[in-house]
């Protein structure tokens, strides 16, 4: 079976690194990995949807619509935009409640939605939606908000929403993160514990 992860967030905020961690963790487990990392202009503060697929039966680099098993959203607005890939029957959403307001909210007078509104929009396309604020935890604990990215991966692994082993992800972090590796590993561990207490599969 193929497991389809969509990672989404804002360009330049570490989504590609997070995707590289997930992909190389799956590789560490000997699984066949496919996926898509779009580079280029999208990185300049634009939406950056990224796909990682592992296990048998995957060939296409991108996920088909309504076929994501997990949406790992590092930014709430981008989580709301991921519904195209989501499906009531199986898609789990793990969302980091750390809004990154696009300049177009002001320019086009389209207000940034609150979290309740976002979850309401996603619910019809999700088996379950879980909201965390890993950036806030990371900022308080380490003084560096972006460590919330590895923490969110920890939440996904700890809750079993992302079926990968703790050790393979730890090794993937060590291999793919250039700065603050120790802090990233620590952040991952905090996330793991946050996730372990979650009942993500129950409705």
């Amino acid at each position, binding site marked *: 079976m193929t497991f389809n992860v969509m990672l989404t967030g*804002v*360009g*330049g905020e570490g989504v590609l690194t997070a*995707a*590289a961690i997930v*992909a*190389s963790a799956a*590789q560490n487990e000997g699984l*066949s*990995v*496919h*996926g*898509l*990392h*779009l*580079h*280029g*202009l*999208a*990185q*300049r*503060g*634009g*939406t950056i949807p990224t796909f*990682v697929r592992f296990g048998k*039966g*995957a*060939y*296409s*680099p*991108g996920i*088909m*619509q*309504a076929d994501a098993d997990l949406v790992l959203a590092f930014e709430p*607005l*981008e989580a*709301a*935009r991921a*519904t*195209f890939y*989501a499906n009531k029957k199986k898609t789990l959403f793990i969302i980091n409640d750390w809004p990154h*307001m*696009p*300049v*177009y*909210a*002001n*320019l*086009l007078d*389209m*207000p*940034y*939605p609150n979290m309740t509104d976002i979850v309401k*929009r*996603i619910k*019809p*396309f999700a088996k379950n939606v879980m909201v965390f604020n890993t950036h806030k935890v990371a900022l308080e604990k380490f003084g560096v*908000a972006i460590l919330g990215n590895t923490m969110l991966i920890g939440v996904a692994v700890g809750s079993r929403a992302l079926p990968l082993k703790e050790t393979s992800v730890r090794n993937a972090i060590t*291999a793919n993160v250039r700065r603050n590796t120790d802090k990233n590993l620590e952040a991952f561990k905090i996330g793991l514990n946050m996730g372990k207490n979650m009942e993500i599969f129950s409705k």
Partner: protein
Amino acid sequence: MNVLEKAGKNVVLLGNEAIARGALEAGVGVVAAYPGTPSSEVPTTLAGIAKECGFLFEYSSNEKVAFETAAGAAWSGVRSLTAMKHFGLNVASDSVSPVAYSGVKGGFVLMVADDPYGWSSAQSEQDTRYYARMMRLPVLEPSNPQECLDLTKLAFDISEEFELPFFLRTTTKVSHAIGTVKLGKIKKPKLKGKFVKDKSRYYNIRPNLQELHKQIDGKLNKIEKKYAKLNKVFKGKGNIGVIASGVSFEYAKELFHMLGINPPMAKLTLTYPTPRNFIKQFIKNKKAVLVLEELEPIVENEVKMLAKDVNPKLAVHGKALLPNYGEYNLEVMMPAFEKVFKKKCGINFAAHKKQTTVSIKGLPPRKPVLCPGCPHRSTFYAVKDVFGENAVFAGDIGCYVLGIFEPFNMQDFIVSMGASLGISHGISMVSDQEIIAFIGDSTFFHSGMSALANLKFNDHKTPLIIVMDNSFTAMTGHQPNPGTGITGVGEAVQSIKIEEVAKAMGAEVRVVNSFNQKQIKDAILELKNVTGLRVIISRGECRLVTKRKLRSKNLEFTKFEIDQSKCTKCGICTNKFACPAIKEIRKKASDEPIYYIEPDICWGCSVCMQICPYGAIHPVKKEVKE
């Protein structure tokens, strides 16, 4: 780094990284490239390891020069590679055909990445496979990262065997796909070669030209005979077949699985010279075939021609059921499969799309934007302050294409590298409109200088040229260019000053600091009514680079903040300047907004302070200095 892992290991690589690894395993000696999405990671990966692996690497000033550089090395017997985006081949094309006629000594791979859908902000969806037919270059098309590695390596071998440049063609979804790749052994590069004079080969003038033309056709025939075996038939059931190349092959496998079908499939890997016998064999007993290729119906038309000989009744499906614009993906292809194979996948794509479109209605878009502290934002703001909306703003290729969006709307057209100068020259010949031509530093060296010479040469009324010099080829990942002062492998060199080039061409030149509104505006006002060639160089280092430099020294930018007692909530800083770090916050929609600068993403350019009419923005005092 995965790309340097040991032979025999399985690692996850990006398609472009796998191409770089393939080049290493082929023992590439010389790599020359001009960066361009979606090909950029090929040179970027190789630049980072050139010294360690002992091959020669350069970022050339444009794709034509890069192609010629690699060709010269290949003529001298050294394995060489050049990589470019689809438009890059347009630039290089002048030299491609003659080099193909002459052939090569060392293996020579020309990697070109097409960009259907235009993820790279490309200005057209051109299909470069036509070039291969025009220039007579054999084409290999990988479908996934593993093939990217294997075919790159193979391309060097066959190129050397037939003494012909090889064209390795990808599309975005091949170059940017990730996948498990089994690595082979890295080969030590051979760097020394010698150019051996040979009139029969390098004198491409008549009557030798016709001889070379004949020779290249002979080589292609031989390649077709010997290497048609690179194309594979995957056996299946039924008399309807699929012919696929590139990423479409991957989609097809997944669609078969989803529909529970198993039709025979021919995978084309060597797509030119057209493997005629291979295709004839595949189609001769079929009732119908579905041809899968993104963009133009090139294989489809070839199949139709071949069917006339072996199976005139064959139904050839392709672009009648699938678009020749945009990218293929599973959703786009499924209806064609359902129709041809008379199966239903049971998913209502349209209904899901409609429901999800409704679910995201009213959400603010997140188009790409100029970064916080971007020097281009400051330049655009100052230019607009002087000229308003009415001047013609000639656009060009670089991060500043983002000026096309609100609130600037200052790229009235975007054509190609350096075209802002040529097109605005044409407009100025027949119109009295005020014209501002924007061009970047890398673009200036790439294609701007010849256009500048033309403006001087035909000096009557010229646009006001503004060079937006951020010292790097920023959009593709901060590659250095002739103005940067470092080479592709990080060695210090003398930088070429654009102002000296412009002065040498007889221009009236001003150099201003991009982060100083007054300087920019003063220079514009000074040159606005001057006749003749006028160039303003707005110089400010890409803030992402400055940020990295500071971080390596554990330093921070000086942050700015808004004094709420002075802020009149005029909204200029958010609605006209639109720095992503400045936010307009309302607790409820009916509340008065509060404006504040998010310290995490304030990159300290100070321009918001300069443009605030009420003096409400000032530096945060306690912070350490830059």
